[in-house]
């Protein structure tokens, strides 16, 4: 006997009560539990819905759903980073490598032209710090509005806000003291090229994560999940 809509909804509530907040993860678990319950009922038609559910949940072991959620989060973070890495590598192939080299050269020329490394670096760092800050703020607002409108939270949206874990690495604040300290030293051309390369590659990674991979992943998920609509 197939489960009713009310029972399916009960399964969603059950997963939520067992710390699965994300609708995209709940969906798969609900279908799994439902299949198991239906199979049990086929063998034993007298078994109650609650007893069958209890037996199915037990199969997930003492950790319950937490292992599934944890591993799914890790897997999605990895997927995000692999997408970023894929696009990043494409900047080292023709014709994009020309653009990358041109940007590095432009930044280097700017430092030489203004003859004031401190201000050039400071302005760059502020820009590289503000952009992810605005991104996180706007994404957080977007996630909240989706939750308010539909009552659903999506794991991949939470992954996007964290840039697949890259947010910790793409925080220029970590490097700022080292970068600004450079101003006190007399720097060789090689050192200036190294600084230019770092700033440009950092900006490139940030650009790819925010403006290429994020919309790309959101589109992938919208295509995959019929309940998700891009607002």
């Amino acid at each position, binding site marked *: 006997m197939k*489960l009713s809509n009310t029972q399916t909804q009960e399964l969603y509530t059950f997963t939520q009560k067992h710390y699965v907040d994300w609708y995209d993860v709940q*969906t798969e678990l609900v279908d799994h539990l439902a299949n198991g319950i239906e199979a049990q009922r086929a063998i034993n038609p007298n078994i109650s819905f609650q007893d069958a559910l209890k037996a199915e949940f037990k199969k997930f072991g003492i950790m319950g759903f937490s*292992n599934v959620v944890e591993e799914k989060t890790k*897997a999605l973070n*990895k997927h995000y980073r692999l997408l970023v890495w894929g696009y990043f590598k494409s900047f080292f192939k023709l014709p994009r490598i020309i653009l990358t080299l041109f940007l590095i050269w432009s930044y280097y020329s700017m430092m030489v032209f203004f003859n004031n490394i401190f201000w050039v670096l400071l302005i760059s760092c502020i820009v590289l710090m503000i952009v992810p800050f605005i991104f996180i703020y706007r994404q957080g607002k977007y996630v909240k509005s989706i939750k308010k409108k539909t009552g659903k939270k999506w794991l991949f949206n939470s992954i996007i806000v964290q840039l697949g874990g890259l947010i910790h690495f793409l925080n220029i604040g970590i490097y700022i003291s080292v970068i600004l300290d450079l101003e006190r030293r007399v720097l060789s051309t090689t050192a200036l090229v190294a600084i230019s390369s770092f700033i440009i590659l950092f900006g490139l990674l940030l650009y790819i994560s925010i403006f290429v991979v994020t919309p790309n992943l959101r589109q992938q998920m919208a295509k*995959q999940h*019929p309940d998700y609509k891009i607002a």
Partner: protein
Amino acid sequence: MSNSKLYKGSINTIILKLLNEHNKMYGYEITQKVKDLTKGELNITEGALYPALHKLEAEGLLDVEIAKVDNRLRKYYKLTENGTKETANKLEELADYIKTMQTLINPKLA
């Protein structure tokens, strides 16, 4: 997987092989198929199956399709082009492993 630690390292190969033969499958179906094929000898636990599926998906070896079945949503997995290539590699690896173990355990048969 509940019955033996020896099977743990092969879960990805089992999933890939099943998907190679069945075009698309969902999680519960995979657990039941393994149970049926091995006559209950091998039991893939839910706690091991989903992390493995999600990892393979993240690595780009599996593609996902969600469809409405029996009034609820079902997540189907299928092999990507890379997944098909990886299946062949994994099966080859497993065959080599079995051959090597055979040599060690039963040198007369090798």
